[in-house]
């Protein structure tokens, strides 16, 4: 009993000594020791004297959009590392788990980073580590999902509510063109009900459509952002409604499934279609004229957040929220985005 007690005490002592020795000074000497204690709209730092180390903390890669988002960001990070623009980068995958992401991000901070680019798994759980980074002088760029603390440099996001509004407004215009007045029966295919994108996009759609009482959302099937669910749900909607003037879809993949169901039922209505997100399958349909337009939710979001972070490191000041421009894709500009010989499931932008 005594022996094991001594062993434990020795082990603990060893651990403390090792961690004390392991506290390496931060690789970049550019962070000024005195940072303002309260958050200010923009924190600028002296330009880095040597290439920075970037820390990327990602909620997860649990869906294809997130996979594409990380792929694009990683490609850029690797490129910049090879060219010497950055010294190195660390990556944490939270697997949609708050504790895991927080712990991994803490580790990154301890290893020493010059910029934190983070997509928090949930709103408040990552506040602690975000504030720690900010207070220690590391600029923080939050992207894709919100945090509830104020201590960050900028929040980079695509305005999904605006996407919904643009898709709905276009539908209003199309219906007015066709029927002479803004009226008609439309189906609004939902993304995974309860998810952030679905809530925001539907909010935008409702914002616009509530002004036109003659346009009725006759059905709101849930496609769960998936092709097979979109096909299944649309088949039922087609059975119920004989005349559908148009479709607005939260999801490109779900829309592709739904249009398969329309084809298999041999329907000639459902002519007017707008969509949200840049699923390659939908881009191909825009090229062929089947779908009128789509409003992008770029998988570039992570990459753009990193680029904004680099701007901060080079001394530029930024707004508290950086909205990426909403991009409408239609027949006129689809060639810039579509990959005709690429898989339907690609996120090209």
């Amino acid at each position: 009993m005594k022996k094991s007690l001594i062993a434990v005490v020795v082990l603990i002592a060893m651990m403390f000594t090792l961690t004390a020795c392991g506290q390496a000074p931060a690789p970049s000497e550019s962070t000024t020791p005195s940072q303002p204690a309260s958050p200010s709209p923009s924190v600028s730092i002296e330009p880095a004297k040597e290439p920075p180390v970037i820390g990327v903390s990602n909620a997860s890669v649990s869906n294809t959009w997130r996979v594409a988002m990380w792929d694009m960001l990683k490609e850029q990070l690797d490129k910049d590392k090879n060219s010497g623009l950055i010294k190195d980068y660390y990556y944490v995958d939270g697997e949609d788990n708050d504790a895991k992401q927080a712990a991994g991000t803490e580790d990154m901070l301890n290893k020493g980073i010059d910029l934190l680019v983070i997509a928090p798994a949930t709103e408040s759980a990552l506040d602690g580590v975000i504030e720690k980074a900010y207070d220690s002088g590391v600029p923080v760029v939050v992207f894709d999902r919100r945090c509830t603390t104020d201590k960050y440099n900028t929040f980079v996001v695509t305005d999904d509510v605006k996407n919904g509004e643009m898709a709905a407004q276009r539908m209003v215009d199309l219906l007015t063109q066709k029927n002479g007045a803004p009226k008609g029966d439309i189906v609004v295919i939902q993304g995974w009900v309860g998810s952030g994108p679905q809530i925001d996009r539907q909010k935008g759609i409702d914002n616009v459509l509530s002004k036109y009482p003659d346009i009725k959302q006759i059905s709101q099937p849930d496609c769960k952002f998936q092709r097979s669910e979109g096909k299944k749900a649309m088949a039922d909607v087609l059975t119920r409604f004989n005349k559908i003037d148009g479709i607005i879809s939260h999801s490109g993949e779900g829309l592709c499934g739904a249009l398969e169901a329309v084809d298999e039922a041999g329907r000639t209505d459902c002519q007017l279609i707008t969509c949200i997100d840049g699923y390659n399958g939908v881009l191909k349909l825009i090229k062929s004229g089947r779908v009128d337009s789509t409003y992008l939710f770029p998988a570039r979001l992570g990459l753009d957040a990193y680029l904004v972070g680099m701007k901060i490191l080079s001394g530029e000041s930024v707004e508290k929220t950086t909205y990426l421009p909403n991009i409408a894709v239609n027949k006129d500009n689809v060639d810039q985005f579509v990959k005709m010989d690429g898989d339907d499931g690609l996120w090209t932008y």
Partner: protein
Amino acid sequence: MKRTIEDNMGKWLSGIRGVNKVHIALLVIIAVSVLLSFKSFSNWTNAMNIMNNVSLFGGIAAIGMTFVIISGGIDLSVAAVMGFAANISCNYYNIYKAGGLSEGAAITLMLIVTFGGAAVIGLLNGALITYLKIEPFIVTLGSMTVLSGVNLWITQGKNINGVFEFFSNIGTGSFTWLNNGTFFFGPVTGEAARQVAFRIPLVPIIFIVFCIVFNIVLKRTVYGRRVFAIGGNAEAAKLSGIKVDRIRLITYVLCALLAAVNGLLLGSWTKAYAPNLTLGFELDVIAAVIIGGTAMKGGLGSIGGTISGLIILQILYNMINLGIDLSAFGIGLSWAPETYVRQFIKGVIILGAVIMQRRPSNK
């Protein structure tokens, strides 16, 4: 002992061979659905959609699950096996398209890998359960997680599209009679779909054939009776000379193979694979089997019951989309559940069906 209405009805109906509560429930639900949404529900297209959904979204896997649950076990890995089958199918198609293999070779390899992989999972499940004596719930939860990880790794988290024409014809093809009298078999879209006089999709036919075959296996072969025996009382079965371990092993392999068939068909219908394609399907499959009258503890059950359970679930999902429409009766009421309410309704109905299915414990 007080006689409930169920007891009385049960006594009367049990005179009729093979009828059990779930078949009554199914008839009631069909009747209610017909009344509530006459125009939309009671037409051939809708009925065929429902049968398609029954077969594709877990039907064939449920046949295997029935065997497993009757034997006293459970298999949570079926959804992952279904996903695996769809995944491999799309992958080999893309390899063929990129010129890597001839079509024949690609299809053969695809079938070998799909069913070989499923058999391996089934063997793994069976072996861990029988020889290491670990709880089926835990073992199949583990194999589900492992296989889901493999699925993700194969496509690196991405979607993958495209299946062999042979399989997409099976998945989306129908025996079709056109208005002008022509008959053909194949996928029906666009202009042809508007000329259809009558059509029967192939997928439900495949499902029914599997049901008939495996009903015979369950009810009339020695193996089937041994499955019941093990589920009823494993100790007694072992003492009477039944090789309990081997029967269990075979059952888990059978379940995985049937899940693979289901996955192949599902992939052929969607013509694509996404990482969350079969998310949560194992729960639907298990719910259908339980609603169908197979007891969780084993020893009781039937394929017929499972089929009714499957149809009940799919009708519910269909009715949630169709909503109530009384216009056929001259009443101007038309309502469909609001988006956020649907999940709630689904849960309430499944709970209700399961409660209706409970067996009084003193029987």
